């Protein structure tokens, strides 16, 4: 069964139930994964997925439902569910119409023909190569890893004339390496791309090996200090997803949850900080000319030289705030293509680019009298409402007088992200792709490092 086989019948079924406007978002995904376990390729999987989400307006009432699709009857039943849901709801005063067609944004080529022809054998070979570059018998092993590649066809159709089809590919890898023997250390690497040829298994394996060894040298930190903290890009992407992206979301403005609600045109960060949502950049794994409501996307300066320039929205929140749609209503994620039809529309940047600085991490380290270079955090998350954080350091390198001294763990970095953004000492030039972010390391001043007594 193909998308074309059931989208039309679903729309017709919804109309038959009295819907005046209908939107169908349907995806067909095919992915392959190779899992490493204890330095071997342990599991190899292949997944094929087909499903749809339907939203409709029936007598000004909004209904929605989702369903896996194995037959046209599934799609029609999904439409009837949505129509039934609409009968239970009051008249919708905000969402009065689905988006109408508009010119596409710049088409970022996020599709790799090499992945369409990929076989599990190739993924197993690549994973074996990563393992080979990571493992040193008796010294370093790879306990876990996943390498996933796949392609998706996503189609958005609505009765206002939108009919968009997006073909894209995704390569995602996450793996860990650990030292063997007493007091082991563990390090992890992630990789996000649309193109499989960008994955360098040898380089990833070598970095994993080094991270494991570095982590094994870490000692529990004792005491407290206030100092500079250099955060690595991978962990920063997660920290910013829970703070910057949250604060920029029009949903959170409308819910009065965003700390940046009344700060448009005002400084929200140091002037070294600029965030651009750039769906035209091919390095972003979610870059595309349309969002998942069929709204054209565009490059947006959200924070420029520390000044808040704008917010991102989906159709609902654009209507609610009476502002133009920004094309940030998404149903996709950066790790997995299967099951995207199950994801409700939410607001997210498609490819958040943080403007890089001109200094290397080594140069930033040499400028610091007292601080820590973080290699990995346990759980990089921020309280989204307040911005407060207490981050456990899994592996970090203390900095004294411009040089790295001891490697430490089991300590907390405490602070507030919305305050910390005003106290940026430096932005690095080491940009990587992580989640839906492209960003470098950032050094924050005056954060608290707390260890045991």
């Amino acid at each position, binding site marked *: 069964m193909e998308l074309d086989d059931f989208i039309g019948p679903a729309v017709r079924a919804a109309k038959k139930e009295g819907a005046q406007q209908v939107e169908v978002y349907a995806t067909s995904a095919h992915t392959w994964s190779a899992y490493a376990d204890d330095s071997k390729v342990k599991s190899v999987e*292949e997944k*094929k997925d087909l499903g749809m989400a339907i939203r409709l307006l029936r007598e000004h009432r909004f209904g929605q439902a989702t369903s896996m699709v194995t037959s046209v009857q599934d799609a029609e039943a999904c439409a009837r569910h949505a129509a039934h849901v609409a009968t239970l709801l009051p008249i919708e005063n905000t969402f009065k119409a689905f988006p109408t067609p508009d010119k596409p944004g710049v088409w970022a080529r996020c599709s790799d023909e090499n992945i369409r022809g990929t076989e599990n054998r190739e993924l197993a070979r690549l994973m074996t190569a990563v393992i080979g570059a990571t493992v040193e018998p008796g010294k370093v092993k790879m306990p876990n890893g996943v390498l996933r590649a796949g392609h998706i066809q996503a189609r958005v159709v609505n009765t206002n004339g939108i009919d968009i089809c997006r073909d894209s590919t995704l390569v995602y890898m996450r793996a860990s390496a650990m030292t063997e023997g007493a007091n082991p250390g563990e390090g992890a690497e992630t990789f996000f791309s649309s193109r499989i040829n960008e994955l360098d298994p040898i380089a990833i394996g070598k970095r994993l090996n080094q991270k494991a060894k570095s982590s094994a040298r870490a000692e529990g930190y004792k005491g407290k200090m206030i100092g500079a903290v250099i955060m690595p890009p991978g962990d920063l992407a997660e920290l910013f997803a829970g703070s910057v992206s949250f604060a920029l979301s029009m949903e959170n403005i409308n819910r*009065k949850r965003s700390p940046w609600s009344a700060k448009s045109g005002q400084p929200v960060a140091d002037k070294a900080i600029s965030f651009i949502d750039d769906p035209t950049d091919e390095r972003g794994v979610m870059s595309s000319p349309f969002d998942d409501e069929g709204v054209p996307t565009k490059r947006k300066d959200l924070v420029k030289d520390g000044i808040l320039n704008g917010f991102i929205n989906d159709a609902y929140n654009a209507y609610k705030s009476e502002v133009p749609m920004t094309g940030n209503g998404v149903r996709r994620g950066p790790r997995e293509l299967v099951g995207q039809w199950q994801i409700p529309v939410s607001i997210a940047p498609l490819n958040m680019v943080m403007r890089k600085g001109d200094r290397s991490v080594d140069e930033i380290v040499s400028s610091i009298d007292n601080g820590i270079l973080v290699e990995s955090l*346990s759980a990089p998350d921020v309280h989204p409402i307040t911005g407060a*954080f207490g981050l*456990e350091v899994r592996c970090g390198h203390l900095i004294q007088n411009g040089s790295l001294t001891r490697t430490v763990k089991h300590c907390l970095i405490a602070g507030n992200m919305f305050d910390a953004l005003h106290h940026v000492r430096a932005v690095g030039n080491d940009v990587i792709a992580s989640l839906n972010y492209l960003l470098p390391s950032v050094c924050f001043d005056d954060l608290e490092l707390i260890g045991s007594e």
Partner: protein
Amino acid sequence: MIDLLKQAVAVMQDAGAKFCDARYQKVNRTTIEIVDGGVRSLAEDLVGGLCLRARHSGSWGYASTHDLDRKNVFLAAERAASNAKLGSAKGVAIPPGKTLVRDVKAMVQVHPSSVALEEKLNLTKDLEKAQRISPQIVNSTAAYMDSVRTNWLVNSFGSELKWEEVRARLIGQPIASDGTRTELFYNIVDGSKGFEMFKSLDIDEMGRYCGKEALSMLSAKKCPSGEQVCISDPWVSGLLAHEVMGHASEADEIIKKRSFLTTVVGKKVASDLITMVDDGTVDGPYGSITFDDEGTPSSRTTIIENGVYKGYMHSLETAAEMGVHPTGNGRAQDPFRRVFVRMTNTFFEAGDWTLKEMLEDVKFGVLTDKVISGMEDPVGGGFEGKALRGFLIENGKITDVLRSFTLTGKALEILRTTDAVGKDIKFAGGNCGKGNEDMVPVSDGGPYCRSRIILGGG
């Protein structure tokens, strides 16, 4: 369905699989979200699919699809068997298991499918409305979810199983703001039960409680940083049980020596007051299951007993590797995800202290309240948990509300300092991701526990 799965198993066996299983899952789910008096979303979803799994040597091959066309199912079965041969892991054979033939319905009083959508909608609306007790409640949200998961499983042991899992959850989450500070609070009622969980609730009281506590957070102070006497509430206690001791007791981590608990069976690892179990058979919590996703009946596994470490949780594979019985912990997020060792309901058993008695002995310390998040560290044994809030304890009395903070430290050092364990256990449900994927429904919990823990927050 069972016949189709049996034929798929036969195809995998013909293709050389020594052990294989075929699993179909269908989930009917209702989700409702009410925000500031309006219906933000109301949806009915049907998700699921077919997973075919074959083992060759020590490797697994999977093929997952929605397509139940017989020809395509058999093709997928062949792909699962051939995928298994691409792996390089060696391992012992899964020994023959019991042949089970069962058809088990969920033990619920009010099945979600018997409740009109209007009633669920009204319940959620009432909870949202009840939170708005002051103009300083600037945003109020209530969310409802129920799911009915029906599983069919056939394996090469000859088992033919069908079972149902029901879960439901109700959440109230207000945001309070005084113009300069903004804080949130939440309360959740959840479990592997039906709509009866909400019939006995005083929804108005639940909503007002959420609103009142959100307002109290506006005057919350910063948590004292450093190592403190800390009374963890049942949810933070459960977080420690789950994230550190639980994940490190999953036998797949033991086999590959990725756990700091790899060589500690029979050794004293915690205070005498600490007993910890994983038990998927408990009636009611969110992580309870009848069978795991390999068809093994759920069971109770004692992990720590009176401070002495006892043993691990197992899937079919890890049990075979270690020569023990499987414990019913082979679980998968859905038919599109692999099966590996996962927890169910993981908790510390009760002691004999009241909270009042625990507080009386504390000159200066912190009492935690509710969890935001946590992260496992099976290698290092480090604890990292984020509390929604806390209370400052001075001279045996609670003197201030504390805003969100993080707890950390070596788990075994924390458990060795535990000098008081409370009388009552509570559970909190959630979805556990091992690494950052593969979410399965679990719960964790325990009683109030008093220990020394490093605290810090912004």
